[in-house]
């Protein structure tokens, strides 16, 4: 589904991504871990098309299409969804209005008929239930005054509504309480299918107990320095990153 080849990117004058290679197939779950500031959110941002990142080199292919050539909205319409690490508040834009606009623009792009108010409401109710999202929050202004955890859960509700094929969750687990983590994970598991794929950026092995990854990668200093299976996450939990950093430094760059 997704193939990233030798991706190099910078923000302002600082190169952040230094040759990322990653292949994600439909139906898979990949976890990306790594120390603070290593470039995990940057990778997600480049995939979503944030314009302060400049791609210096490399390719990103989504089911045969060149993702880097597309506007952020077209990437979303092609099925890329990034759950933000820090979702922003947009006062005055109602959550539900925003979602209806988004869904209908995506459907128009995919040449699907628009949903009328009734159909939309039905879908919204159904997905609220699926991810156990509070109905009161649905009608409020987008993230305005939401608690940290509520914002994260709103990201997952949006994901459930828009049915993307490539879902990048940037530290969605940070800030969730124990119950919310379980609920959100259950939601994600229900949304998993043979046709979509997930990239979970996380610092904690706990999330990976609920959503079991097929692969775990370690991102350090803009590169993926180690890949493995779910056991790698356990090892990291135990040993931290230093042992990897050291072996990485020994390699000639």
């Amino acid at each position, binding site marked *: 589904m997704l193939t990233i080849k030798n991706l190099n990117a910078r923000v302002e004058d600082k190169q952040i991504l230094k040759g990322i290679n990653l292949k994600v197939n439909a139906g898979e779950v990949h976890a990306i871990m790594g120390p603070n500031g290593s470039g995990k959110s940057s990778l997600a941002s480049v995939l*979503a*098309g*944030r*314009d302060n990142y400049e791609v210096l080199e490399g390719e990103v292919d989504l089911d045969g299409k060149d993702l880097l050539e597309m*506007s*952020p*909205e077209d*990437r*979303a*319409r092609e099925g890329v*969804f*990034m759950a*933000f690490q820090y*979702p*922003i508040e*947009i*006062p*005055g*834009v109602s959550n539900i*209005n*925003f*979602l209806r*606009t*988004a*869904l209908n*623009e*995506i459907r128009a*792009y995919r040449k699907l008929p628009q949903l009328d108010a009734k159909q939309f409401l039905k879908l919204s109710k159904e997905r609220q239930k699926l991810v156990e999202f509070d109905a009161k929050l649905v009608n409020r*202004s987008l993230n305005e005054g939401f608690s940290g955890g509520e914002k994260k859960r709103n990201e997952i509700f*949006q994901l459930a509504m*828009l049915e993307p094929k490539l879902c990048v969750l940037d530290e969605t687990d940070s800030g969730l309480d124990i119950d919310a983590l379980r609920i959100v994970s259950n939601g994600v598991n229900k949304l998993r299918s043979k046709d979509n794929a997930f990239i979970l950026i996380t610092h904690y092995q706990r999330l990976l107990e609920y959503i079991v990854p097929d692969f775990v990668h370690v991102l350090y200093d803009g590169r993926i320095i180690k890949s493995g299976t779910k056991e790698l996450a356990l090892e990291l939990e135990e040993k931290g990153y230093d042992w990897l950093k050291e072996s990485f430094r020994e390699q000639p760059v």
Partner: protein
Amino acid sequence: MTKQITIPLYTELLEGFSHSDENATDDTLQKIRRAGFENFKKSGFPTRRDEDWKYTTISSFLQEQYHINGIAKELTASAELISEAIVPSLDAYQLVLVNGKLQPHNNNFPGFIKIIPISEAVIQDDVRQHFAGNSTVASGHFAALNTALFSNGLFIEISANAAIDKPLHIVHAFTSATNVFIQPRHLFVVHQGAELNVIETIVSENSLAKIFVNSLTEVIVEENASFNHYVLQTAKTGVRLVNQTDVKQKRHSVYSNYTFCMPKADLIRNNLNVALNAEQTETHLYGLYLGEDQQLIDNHSLIHHKFPHCNSNEIYKGVLLDKATGVFNGKVFVNPEAQKTNAFQQNNNLLLSNNATINTKPQLEIFADDVKCSHGATVGQLSKEAMFYLQSRGIGEEAARALLVNAFAFDVTEKIKIPELEQYINHLIALHIPGNKN
């Protein structure tokens, strides 16, 4: 005054006045008009040296050869033009004025509302006490000129303790094939304990002829009365609008003004003056201006706190595109006697183009010590972060911008108490965001 003489309009006005003065039929009214004219002659049209006209060079809108009477009066507006003022699915009483003149209407109004042309009203003694209050005439310039030479307009009165069941929608249509200078004059009296909701919509065609409208409205809100006053200015190219509204509030009254300045008119200048003439009043001034092309939109307001325990709240929001210019000046005067005043003012602006300009000036003059007053003005651009968030969910750039501009306007639009009108205003906003032009 020396400079005035060089513009053709000035001569036209002098002649027009002496003609109307000769034909005057009512002594008292004639006195009022003369006082107005003397005042106008003294003050003339404002220049940039007048502090209140610093950013609006009115002389550039007065150069044309305007007619002050004649043809324009006789015209009727096309049904199409009137229908442009319709607020979808809104149930309202409707009145239509063409170039200030009240058109025949069906008489389905409740008995407690009196509607007559201003010319008939001002010769009645009980009306005259409310007409051309000192402050109005003394302010000179356009207000004095209007008093001297107004021809048409409305007098609307709602009886004590009556409440209107649905809004009164007044459509002001302006249309002319030649340059005209039109001076409508209106007076609203909301008697004790009464409740009135009015929507005024100004419409015009895109006009090759220049239509200068110098309009003056006086509003009296008596004790315990409440008036929701919506003004929707959707005039198009060719129209220059100078619109003064003078409000007087009595004890325990509530006055809420909602002004929406939409794109296209060459010039909109609003002067909204509210005098709080008793204790325990409540005043809300909400404004939204959307400027496009070379448009100039200038909102001046004055809230005068003269008595203790009055609350005023003002929020004006501006969105400026292209080469448009916005001006906001919000005066709040608090007299020494006006203790326990709460006065809040806010003006926020969104510049959507590098060539757009805003001049904003909050002007609080507070002479009482036990008061709560605050003000703030901001100028900004659309948040890139917010744009990216919306786009990352599949929303195209134009739709995203429209959502954010609607959101910016939300503090004002959410205050609209008529849902159909709120929806309509939001629709108008979205229509004017770049890329969404119809």
